[in-house]
């Protein structure tokens, strides 16, 4: 381990470890009972990747069904279950675990801490999330329950009342859905509290809030946002469960309850949730773009302010999901304007990333390729978002494939691309080996082509009037060719993701040795070994600027003379 590339002396304890061969059961017990932030981070990421593959498989089945008009590849009720499970899986079991996976692994390393603030709470949060996910999927076999009907939930991922009432959704599919989201929600709350306490109370000496890496800043903001975002969902799910099990009337219109109240409660969670999912993408961009442009991030304080601004504004935009419900024109105008306001801090971020790249000596390695893709796709996703925020336009296109295209541009084009970039970027730190560049380039280009074939085309079928969540369509509607193209693009993306999965395994055994700092980066996680030892840093680091490793490598021109 004592190689020449160590930027810092004394971060490692070089006493040779006692090596004992472990049996499989010992290994399993170690992972199941671990409270180490790096292992829990990996468990979160593995969980997310498994559910990415599951949710992706569901998407492929949906696309096969929609590829031809009048198709009967799937039964109609199966189709409803699949798009419900696809949405729920991707948001709660893929997107959220990724937030916590990255935060868990990277944040303590970046702020020079030895672990999260509450390691056991951390383990509890992970297992709640994992078992919540298992419970949701158990509904496929356990959903029939007392009534002898039903299966997995088939009420869409936003589950509007009164479809979720016992009269219209017998069986236990909806109960599994509600309970598993309550359970993963408690896990999420625990994780968010842990990250906040870690970032605020565990920073190493000299790391003031304005010297903290932007990745850690974003994770702090997203955790703060989660505190007030995931809890309204938990509250609404408790109400739904009371309605279904105890005969309550919260969303029962026949007893004076209101279905619109559910919509409000759900989107009070649901819209900030989108920002919860996109913040890790911002966080990764803030690390990868400067390192591969060989320039410090442009406008650090503005980036922090924009992140806090986005989080704040995102709390007041939820009813733009409800323009077609029939709100007053004052309400509509408020939510149009507040939604468009999000464009301001988001624009600041995009300009800052571009300004970071401007004049930089850009290295187009796989992580940077993905982040460049992220930047442009995120811009387009944002622009269609502003289009949809205009209420009269939304009245035309609400619940059409245009909306699907918009938010998949955000979720796949921005978030998934950035996450892939982040995985390529930190893989050498986690495993000690580089991921194959060749497979990485194949992955990137296939993903890019497949993505644009699918989701660019989707805008057009949406404009032609194809509604979302429909089982099939008549041949004379003129959507058949475009749907075929969309499905083909879906398959190309699936191949790209499988190449990525193969690359993960291949590089673990055959990848090039990475060393401690393969990208010549600047934050503290690159100062320790790859993979990092259990204790992270043998000596608590001390920093004087935003780029501590730059200061070490360039003692003649340290950053602190400029900050």
């Amino acid at each position, binding site marked *: 381990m004592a190689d020449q590339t160590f930027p810092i002396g004394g971060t490692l304890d070089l006493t040779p470890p006692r090596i004992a061969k472990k049996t499989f059961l010992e290994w399993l017990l170690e992972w199941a009972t671990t409270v180490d932030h790096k292992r829990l981070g990996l468990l979160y990421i593995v969980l997310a990747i498994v559910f990415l593959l599951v949710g992706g498989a569901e998407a492929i089945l949906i696309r096969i069904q929609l590829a031809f008009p009048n198709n009967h590849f799937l039964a109609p009720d199966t189709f409803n279950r699949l798009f419900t499970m696809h949405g729920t899986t991707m948001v709660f079991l893929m997107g959220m675990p990724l937030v916590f996976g990255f935060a868990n692994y990277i944040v303590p390393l970046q702020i020079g801490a030895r672990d999260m603030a509450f390691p056991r709470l951390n383990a509890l949060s992970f297992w709640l999330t994992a078992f919540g996910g298992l419970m949701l999927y158990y509904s496929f076999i356990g959903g029939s329950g007392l009534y002898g009907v039903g299966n997995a939930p088939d009420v869409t991922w936003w589950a509007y009342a009164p479809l979720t009432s016992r009269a219209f959704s017998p069986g236990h599919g909806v109960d599994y859905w509600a309970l598993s989201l309550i359970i993963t929600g408690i896990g999420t709350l625990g994780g968010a509290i842990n990250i*906040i306490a870690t970032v605020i109370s565990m920073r190493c000496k*000299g790391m003031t809030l304005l010297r903290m890496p932007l990745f850690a800043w974003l994770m702090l903001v997203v955790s703060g946002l989660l505190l007030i975002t995931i809890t309204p969902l938990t509250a609404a799910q408790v109400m739904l469960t009371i309605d279904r099990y105890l005969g309550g009337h919260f969303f029962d219109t026949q007893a004076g309850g*209101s279905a619109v109240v559910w919509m409000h409660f759900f989107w009070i969670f649901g819209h900030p949730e989108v920002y919860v999912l996109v913040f890790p993408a911002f966080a990764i961009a803030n690390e990868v773009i400067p390192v591969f442009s060989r320039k410090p991030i442009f406008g650090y304080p503005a980036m922090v302010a924009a992140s806090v601004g986005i989080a704040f504004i995102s709390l007041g935009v939820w009813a733009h999901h409800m323009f077609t419900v029939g709100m007053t024109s004052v309400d509509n105008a408020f939510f149009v304007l507040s939604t468009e306001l999000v464009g301001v801090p988001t624009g600041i971020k995009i300009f800052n990333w571009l300004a970071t790249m401007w004049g930089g000596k850009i290295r187009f390695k796989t992580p940077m390729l993905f982040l460049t893709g992220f930047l442009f796709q995120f811009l387009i996703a944002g622009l269609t978002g502003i289009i949809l925020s205009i209420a009269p336009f939304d009245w035309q296109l609400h619940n059409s494939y245009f909306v699907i295209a918009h938010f998949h541009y955000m979720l796949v084009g921005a978030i998934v691309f950035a996450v892939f970039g982040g995985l390529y970027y930190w893989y050498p730190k986690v495993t000690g080996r580089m991921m194959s560049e060749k497979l990485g380039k194949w992955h990137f280009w296939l993903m890019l082509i497949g993505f644009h074939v699918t989701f660019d085309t989707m805008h057009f079928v949406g404009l032609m009037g194809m509604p979302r969540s429909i089982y099939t369509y008549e041949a004379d509607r003129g959507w058949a060719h475009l749907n075929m193209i969309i499905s083909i693009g879906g398959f190309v993306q699936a191949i790209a993701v499988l190449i990525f999965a193969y690359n993960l395994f291949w590089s673990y055994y055959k990848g090039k040795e990475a060393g401690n700092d393969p990208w010549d980066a600047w934050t503290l996680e690159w100062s320790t070994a790859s993979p990092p030892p259990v204790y992270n840093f043998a000596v608590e680091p001390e920093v004087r600027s935003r780029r501590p490793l730059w200061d070490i490598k360039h003692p003649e021109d340290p950053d602190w003379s400029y900050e």
Partner: protein
Amino acid sequence: MSATSLVPNQGGAAETWTLPSRGRIAMYSLIIGESAIFTIFVVAYIFYIGKSLYGPTPRQVLEIPVIATICLLSSSFTIWLSERALERNKIKAFGAFWALTLVLGVIFLVYTGIEWQDLIYHKGLTISTNLFGTTFYSLVGLHATHVVFGLIGLTTVLIFTLLGKVREEHSERIQVLALYWHFVDAVWVVVFTVVYILGR
């Protein structure tokens, strides 16, 4: 193994590097999250005031729980007295005030139990009777659940106190738990106002 630090120690700020207590930060975060849950239930309650299609109405069945409210609110004062006693290393006074807090909390809970029994068996209001019943039992029940969790915490500390394990150095942990209890009290002010004054 030389223990060189990351940058040469320049003295000054790094010597006095203190960060907020992680326990307090975590409890404040939990309180923010819990507040959001209560906000949703309170908003639902207020929105549904007077929307029940059939009785009984709040005015017919609800009585203002004066004694329970006085007990719960004064328990915030007694727990503050016990926090202060522990800071000054008066363990006996701490234990006494802590036990008093626990008793006041239990009185509140017992009173709620009696109220619910009266409502269910004599006045015919259950969670499924009407919209008022649904919102009433869920909001007051949510708060009572928090009281139960608080009482479990208080009891745990009391047991440790009786075993002689609580010392001055535990002051901060005790204060973090007390923060939660203050929160439960503060929420009752909101619930009380909404349910027994605005909604009645």
